[in-house]
């Protein structure tokens, strides 16, 4: 019954990505180098999203919806620079960006998205 749900890299708390019925649900991704600025962190996040989507048989042109959390709205412009270089028309997803404090003080950006295969 639960074979219809595929979980990628599950640990005791969460899975990095979950696949069900042709839809991929990605966990919130954060940058690998938290010393980087919001642009550098976003670039790292987007590379991780690319890799996860590829493992799920998808790519960035098939993202439905995205929520971007920034630790401070002042980081949004730098996040958007990286996003704008990565996302291409006409494949932009529905998106919202909100300010929220994140897992650690130096985590500036976290991105969660849903895509189809």
């Amino acid at each position, binding site marked *: 019954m639960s074979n219809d749900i595929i979980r990628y890299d599950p640990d005791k708390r969460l899975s990095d990505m979950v696949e069900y*019925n042709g839809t991929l649900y990605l966990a919130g991704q954060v940058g690998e180098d938290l010393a980087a600025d919001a642009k550098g962190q976003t670039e790292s996040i987007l590379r991780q999203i690319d890799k996860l989507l590829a493992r799920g048989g998808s790519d960035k042109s098939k993202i439905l919806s995205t929520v971007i959390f920034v630790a401070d709205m002042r980081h949004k412009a730098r996040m958007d620079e990286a996003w704008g270089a990565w996302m291409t028309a006409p494949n932009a997803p529905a998106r919202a960006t909100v300010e*929220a404090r994140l897992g650690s003080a130096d985590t500036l950006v976290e991105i969660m998205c849903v895509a189809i295969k």
Partner: protein
Amino acid sequence: MSNIIRHQSDARLSRAVIHNGVVYLAGITADNRGGTSKTQTEEILAKIDALLKLAGSSKSRLLSTVVYVADMRVKPGMDEAWMAWIDPKNPPARATVETRLGTADTLVEIMVTAAQ
């Protein structure tokens, strides 16, 4: 044409909405807000169990979750309750962020998506 099923609906929101085999729950908070983030989370997860059951799903079929905490310092208490609750073989995708919630004593709010 509409094949959307709504449970515990009022004029503002539904606690559970089902479409195409996927269950979307509203953000769930605890009624007893005197407790810690752990006890609030335990109450929330019990409510989520009940809603998922109502929708023909269960915690083993969670897809994605967003956890909102009022302060990142209460995340460990939330996580304790979370890890005791989830099916260890079937954890969902998850993000946890800090944000102000409905009332000053609301420490945790959890929103989940599950397969039926």
